[in-house]
């Protein structure tokens, strides 16, 4: 860039005036000084216009979004927000129907939430458990251990320090997770399970095959009743449901709809033609109709409601 020296100098001065006028403690003398400077030279007003252009670009985004997004990302953000969360996702190898056949058992469990509901409970030792949509949990505390049994769904557990130093475990299917951190989430799905750790570590074991793995902060591990999977890194979508959102980053549409359907009653079908369409965005789980409307307008899709409980998503191009 080859701007003349006088112009560069004018830009530097304009920046200094801009800084002085946006301190929040500007005086009348400052403003008078700026006025005098501005009218002293056409180069000055030209440079000031450039400042205005920068300020306009900055103003094109709400500050509440810009500040957290643009702050230096390696020091804060994600890690800090989710640091304290230790995430476990899990399932049995029984499959969806198998799980569902336990519905009567679910009704008799200690804690449960309905579809679309999210609730937090306090446990006897001061630990808390947040149940995501459609979740059932049994609590078995005794003199030797603190044990949660996840029958179905997804939970976020915040463990308190135990004066009796009993270990804290979550069991789901045949998989046992020993918490070495303070907070964690467990989720039951038909395809298998997943453990994601955001603070410290957990130990996942599958005693049937004598398999045992340690999962460190920032990692997640999937598994089923026959084997433990491979370690992968966490991303921001992990645990977003705590705040009532699904975060999708280049997610296939079909997978996103599967996720959304956990939060609503009835059937949500995806046209196979667009199942692999990659979708990004933040979707509210507390109002899934709103999420569907966002998909409809944002990706030119068509949402057809055959009844309140039967919804089909197809390509908007079809006549």
């Amino acid at each position: 860039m080859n701007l003349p020296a006088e112009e560069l100098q004018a830009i530097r001065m304009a920046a200094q005036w801009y800084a002085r006028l946006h301190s929040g403690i500007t005086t009348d003398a400052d403003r008078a000084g700026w006025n005098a400077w501005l009218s002293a030279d056409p180069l000055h007003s030209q440079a000031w216009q450039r400042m205005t252009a920068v300020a306009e670009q900055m103003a094109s985004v709400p500050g509440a979004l810009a500040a957290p997004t643009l702050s230096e990302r390696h020091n804060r953000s994600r890690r800090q927000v989710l640091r304290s969360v230790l995430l476990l996702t899990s399932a049995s190898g029984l499959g969806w129907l198998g799980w569902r056949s336990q519905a009567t058992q679910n009704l008799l469990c200690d804690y449960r939430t309905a579809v679309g509901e999210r609730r937090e409970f306090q446990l006897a030792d001061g630990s808390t458990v947040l149940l995501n949509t459609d979740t059932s949990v049994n609590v078995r505390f005794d003199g030797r251990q603190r044990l949660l049994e996840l029958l179905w769904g997804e939970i976020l557990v915040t463990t308190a320090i135990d004066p009796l130093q009993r270990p804290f475990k979550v069991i789901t299917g045949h998989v046992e997770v020993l918490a070495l951190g303070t907070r964690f989430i467990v989720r039951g799905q038909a395809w298998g399970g997943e453990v994601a750790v955001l603070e410290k570590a957990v130990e996942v074991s599958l005693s049937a095959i004598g398999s045992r793995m340690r999962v460190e902060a920032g990692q997640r591990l999937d598994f089923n009743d026959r084997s433990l999977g491979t370690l992968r890194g966490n991303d921001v979508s992990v645990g977003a449901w705590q705040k009532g959102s699904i975060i999708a980053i280049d997610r296939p549409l079909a997978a996103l709809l599967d996720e959304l359907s956990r939060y609503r009653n009835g059937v949500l079908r995806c046209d196979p033609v667009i199942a692999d369409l990659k979708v990004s965005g933040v979707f509210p789980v507390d109002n899934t109709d709103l999420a569907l409307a966002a998909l409809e307008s944002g990706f030119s899709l068509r949402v057809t409601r055959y009844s309140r409980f039967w919804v089909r998503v197809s390509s908007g191009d079809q006549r």
Partner: protein
Amino acid sequence: MPATDLSLRSAVDVLYSDHHSWLQGWLRKRLGNAFDAADLTQDTFVRVIKARSALDIREPRPYLSMIAKGLLIDLFRRRSLEQSYLEALAAMPQEQLPSLEEQAILLQALMEIDRLLLGLGPRVRQAFILSQFDGLTYPQIAERLGVSVRTVNNHMAKAMEHCCLMQIQLQLS
């Protein structure tokens, strides 16, 4: 078509056929997936064509990998920004969530602002964000960062000058 254009074009052709799959493999190793690798390979050659430099290249592979490395860094930066952005969105009250279309427009705007801020020192950047986007006064920023009000003022002037020059440069390119 002038002769130089013809020879430039055949030089690009040779470069492409000799090194295309090598570059794609090189990128796949770093990205871990074939789709992004194919995209970035394409982008790398587009850069070479735009720079009209194909005739002058002595060592094609180091040259191509240097360009590809720059594109990789861009990509990671964009991804990381996008993640922070989605996280910020997720923290907003549900009823204030922008539509998907607005979400995409805002992300684009943020990436452009991020490009203006590129190269600012972390302290200067932080002071600028606190003033411009959090709406704090200089005394409040000074207290937050543990520096004098005068330093905050200097940070702001520096940031505005930097952004202005970056804006001019990006408009020219």
